[in-house]
């Protein structure tokens, strides 16, 4: 027994030898190993591209934040300045500009067209950083001196206007001095939704558009000789600004806000890229699984000659790390190249110019991620190396280690789920969303794997013995030893599910928009109607043959206190759940005695008439109340343009915000606001585009202060936005789709090695090329059809859940595109399968036997 003691501890690992063996063993397999890893290249490329984009975005925001804001400090409010504030502001900074902006109708004299625009009346030298980009360039300076305007380029095209033409805003005509290409901080989309017209502030009064009750934003821009002092100065004046109900922005705060909003975009895109990577990882796991099966003989010999299980395991682990590294580097290079395209794809969403500089951080992140994830997924098949017996040298036993018998496999599964969880948490930063994302990924995999297992079970149990031989053989391949059924159904199914869900979601979104625009839904909204204009506007509308579908008064007010707490007190009270931001908004509130058809009381009691000497019972939107932690009975003090009004939350309403009509967060009962300064909103439905144009013209001509929203136009803009968002999503989903195809090609190629013997035997026995081709086609057709069918089922279920729970709409998928997708995926699988098998068919059996023996 003494001799036994010398074998009590395993031998040293001899890492140098392990490296050498890993290199030697890979000699005849390098191209195949690279094929295995190729499925993760695109996933890594997508992530590196997005990370690089994010890095560049952050840096460019840093570099260009000044031009986003255009000044060192901006003070803003949406109500007229309190007495004394203007003279105080005259003492701030070293140069000052001011701007009033508001929505109004513009009238193009030459084409007689009208449209709602955002008017910016400017005085001073703003912007101090960056430019108002115009054509001609000098127009951005000269328009301030004359009765000139800068008109957004989309408007110029829409109304066929040219520089020198005139436009009318309110009561005043302006000459178009230049085409506005880009205003500071403006994105492509904001220009499409509300195109900008710049006019000199000196002429605003004369337009008649700045009367009391109009919704005007006041911006004051300041430049400091020493911009470093701005931060401390802003902090110093913050209490006074709060007191005067003014908000402020510095370059720093704009930087943070812009960065935050684009963090969401890059996070979303990273998750889409991550799905592509996960999809590729299934490919890696399956390829390594087959690879290790083929290596059983080699491993058994090594074990026979005295290699320990750990040594055998490490030899293959080294190969995976090496090839994972190469795959990741290739992916990182591809990602860096793709990143050059991303700014162009996303330019409409971005307020700044994005550079395409190589980001080493992103590249390192991508390579690290690639190695970790390829090792993690390869570990699943790799751990079985530990259990390969040297007895395999004497007789090949394909005895699989059962999952339940090998706890290490459970550990690997746990590590994979943990990794997905950690990665998505890093992207999302929120537990709930992370758990939801991780569970969705795990369930999708489980469902598809379950479908594959069920198929193999059913195919075996109900084997169609009466079919002809070729069909039977193709069918039997689904459950033969070393079959690819599970892996192909999971990877193709997941790819299909992903593509199909994207289609469905796009359809749901567009369906909702169309629903709003169709039938008897209103399509024209008039607002800013003064009380004395209300009857005339209604009369004119009726006279032109359009119905008055809704007419409501709107009173603007601010919130002063909640349960006795002011904004300043709320900010100081860290225990309060109510966000201090609620005090910042301007409430637009209506009053009436009854609910509309889109509202339903969910809590409390609706009171339509105010009672004297009692708190005013208001009704609040349920969602808004929940978000702001407000309860029934909470007291709210509103400032209705100088007059304090004490209210109490009497009820919560569920509001259907999807309907085109005026809806309100807060509703007052009748008997309180009737005499407050207010404007009215009128909603109608006009017919053709020509009718719409003549109605708008008539209204603008008689009531220049009234603004109109043509929902038809809004919908077409929305359509365009959805199209562009769709393109971005499709661009990212493209990585997953192509990865799916690579996984498919890799899986088929791997299975090719498995079926060579079988095909050669069949050919030796006299099977023709055509017959073998049919058997192969049948097998891949069954696989492709079932995979795409499973994927579509998964997509239907997830899209239904999205429609039902997230979009709160009905889900009725169109059958034709779904069928088309089913046939495309099935056919593609068959074609790839047959294309990759062609080398078996093209050569004489003996040659293949010699080469692959």
């Amino acid at each position, binding site marked *: *027994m003494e*001799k*036994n003691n010398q*074998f*009590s501890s*395993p*031998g*040293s690992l*001899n890492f140098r*030898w392990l490296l*050498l*063996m890993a290199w*030697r*063993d*890979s*000699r*005849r*397999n390098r191209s195949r190993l690279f094929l295995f890893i190729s499925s993760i290249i695109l996933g890594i490329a997508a992530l590196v591209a997005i990370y690089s984009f994010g890095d560049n975005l952050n840096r460019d925001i840093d570099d260009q934040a000044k031009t986003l804001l255009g000044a060192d400090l901006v003070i803003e409010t949406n109500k007229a300045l309190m007495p004394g504030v203007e003279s105080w502001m005259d003492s701030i900074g070293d140069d000052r500009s001011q701007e009033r902006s508001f929505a109004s109708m513009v009238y193009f004299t030459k084409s007689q067209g009208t449209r709602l625009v955002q008017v910016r009346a400017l005085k001073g030298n703003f912007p101090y950083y960056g430019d108002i980009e115009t054509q001609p360039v000098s127009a951005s300076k000269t328009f301030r001196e004359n009765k000139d305007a800068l008109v957004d380029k989309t408007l110029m095209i829409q109304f066929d206007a040219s520089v020198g033409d005139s436009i009318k805003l309110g009561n005043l005509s302006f000459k178009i001095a230049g085409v506005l290409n880009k205003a500071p901080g403006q994105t492509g989309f904001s220009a499409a939704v509300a195109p900008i017209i710049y006019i000199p502030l000196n002429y605003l009064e004369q337009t008649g558009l700045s009367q009391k009750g109009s919704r005007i934003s006041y911006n004051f821009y300041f430049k400091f000789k020493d911009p470093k002092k701005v931060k401390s100065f802003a902090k110093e004046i913050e209490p006074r600004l709060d007191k005067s109900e003014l908000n402020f922005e510095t370059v720093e705060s704009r930087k943070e806000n812009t960065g935050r909003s684009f963090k969401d975009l890059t996070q979303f895109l990273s998750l889409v890229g991550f799905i592509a990577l996960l999809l590729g990882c299934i490919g890696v796991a399956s390829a390594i699984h087959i690879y290790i099966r083929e290596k059983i*003989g*080699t491993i*058994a*010999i*090594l*074990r*026979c*000659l*005295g*290699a*320990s*299980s*750990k*040594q055998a395991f490490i030899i293959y682990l080294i190969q995976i790390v090496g090839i994972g590294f190469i795959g990741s580097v290739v992916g990182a290079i591809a990602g860096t190249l793709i990143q050059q395209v991303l700014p162009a794809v996303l330019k409409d969403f971005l307020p700044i110019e994005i550079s395409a500089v190589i980001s080493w951080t992103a590249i390192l992140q991508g390579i690290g991620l690639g190695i970790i994830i390829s090792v993690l997924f390869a570990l699943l098949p790799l751990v079985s190396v530990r259990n390969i*017996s*040297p*007895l395999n*040298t*004497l*007789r090949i036993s394909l005895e699989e280690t059962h999952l339940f018998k090998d706890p290490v496999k459970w550990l690997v599964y746990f590590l994979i789920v943990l990794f997905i969880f950690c990665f998505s948490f890093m992207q999302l930063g929120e537990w709930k969303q992370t758990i939801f994302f991780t569970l969705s990924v795990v369930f999708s995999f489980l469902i598809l794997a379950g479908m594959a297992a069920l198929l193999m079970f059913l195919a075996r149990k109900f084997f169609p013995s009466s079919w002809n031989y070729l069909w039977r053989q193709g069918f039997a391949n689904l459950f033969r030893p070393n079959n690819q059924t599970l892996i192909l159904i999971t990877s193709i199914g997941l790819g299909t599910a992903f593509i199909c869900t994207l289609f469905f979601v796009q359809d749901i979104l567009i369906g909702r928009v169309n629903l709003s625009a169709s039938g008897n839904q209103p399509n024209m909204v008039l607002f800013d109607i003064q009380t004395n204009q209300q009857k005339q506007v209604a009369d004119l509308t009726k006279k032109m043959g359009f119905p008055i579908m809704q007419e409501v008064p709107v009173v603007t007010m601010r919130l002063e206190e909640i349960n006795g707490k002011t904004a300043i007190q709320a900010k100081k009270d860290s225990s309060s759940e109510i966000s201090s931001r609620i005090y910042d908004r301007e409430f637009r509130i209506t009053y009436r005695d009854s609910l509309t058809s889109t509202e339903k009381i969910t809590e409390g009691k609706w009171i339509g008439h105010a009672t004297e000497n009692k708190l005013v019972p208001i009704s609040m939107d349920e969602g808004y109340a929940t978000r702001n932690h407000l309860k029934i009975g909470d007291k709210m003090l509103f400032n209705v343009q100088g007059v304090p009004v004490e209210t109490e939350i009497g009820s919560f309403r569920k509001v259907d915000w999807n309907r085109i009509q005026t809806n309100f967060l807060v509703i007052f009962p009748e008997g309180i606001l009737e005499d407050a300064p207010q404007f009215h909103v009128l909603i109608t439905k006009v017919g053709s585009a020509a009718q719409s144009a003549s109605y708008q013209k008539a209204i603008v001509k008689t009531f220049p202060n009234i603004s109109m929203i043509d929902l038809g136009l809004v919908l077409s803009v929305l359509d365009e936005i959805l199209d562009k968002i769709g393109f971005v999503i499709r661009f990212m989903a493209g990585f997953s789709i192509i990865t799916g195809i690579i996984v498919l090609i890799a899986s088929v190629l791997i299975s090719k090695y498995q079926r060579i013997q079988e095909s050669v035997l069949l050919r030796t026995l006299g099977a023709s090329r055509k017959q073998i081709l049919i058997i192969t086609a049948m097998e891949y057709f069954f696989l492709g059809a079932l995979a795409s069918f499973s994927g579509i089922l998964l997509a239907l279920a997830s899209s239904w859940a999205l429609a039902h729970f997230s979009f709160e709409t009905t889900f009725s998928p169109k059958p034709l595109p779904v069928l088309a997708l089913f046939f495309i995926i099935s056919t593609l699988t068959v074609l790839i399968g047959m294309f990759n098998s062609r080398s078996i068919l093209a050569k004489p059996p003996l040659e293949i036997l010699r080469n692959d*023996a």
Partner: protein
Amino acid sequence: MENILSISNLTKTYQSAGHTLTVLDKVSFNVLEGSTISIVGPSGSGKTTLLGLCAGLDRSSSGIVELNGIRLDDLTEDQRAQVRNQYVGFIFQNFQLLPTLTALENVMVPLELRGEKNIRKNAIELLDKVGLADRINHYPTQLSGGEQQRVSLARAFSNKPKILFADEPTGNLDAETSDKVEKLIFDLNTEAGTTLVMVTHNLDIAAKTQRIIKLKGGVLVSDELNNIEMVDELKYGKE
């Protein structure tokens, strides 16, 4: 002379489709150091299983295997791997060369596993002995069956084993090549003074070993010394 291998009541059973299949049933025998024995018997008699158990490639269901004084059934698989690396050489029917390694590298592997250095010269000498000095950088697929088996022989002797296990070493070779390989096995074995345990169907080869163990249905049915000369050899050693 001492026993290099002691087998006592060795039994191996498998579970198959709910039934217990006994492949080896209470087999016992000893092998003296330096002797040559062959294990013969019809297909399915348990020869290869017995060889696998003797060489520590598998674990028995019951019974004892003691190799060079070490109880193999007490060891883990990794510890048995060390035993194989130190004391055992193998020759297989289907050669079992590592396909991605050259002939020379295949011969060096057992010594590399021990962490030994300067082994190249020794490996080349061995390949020279088996007549493959000019084929050292060839891969197994570039060698004929006989050449592959000669590489396998060189590898088997590379770690100077105390005992050599051979599983149908000439089973995959034609008659002429078979004779050459057979001669090499015995010559090298004699030269190195190694114990040889060989599983074979070929009674002509079996006749060249000192002792023949016959298995049938997993049971040892005979264990005989081959002829008088060999008996003398075993009793009194070589003159």
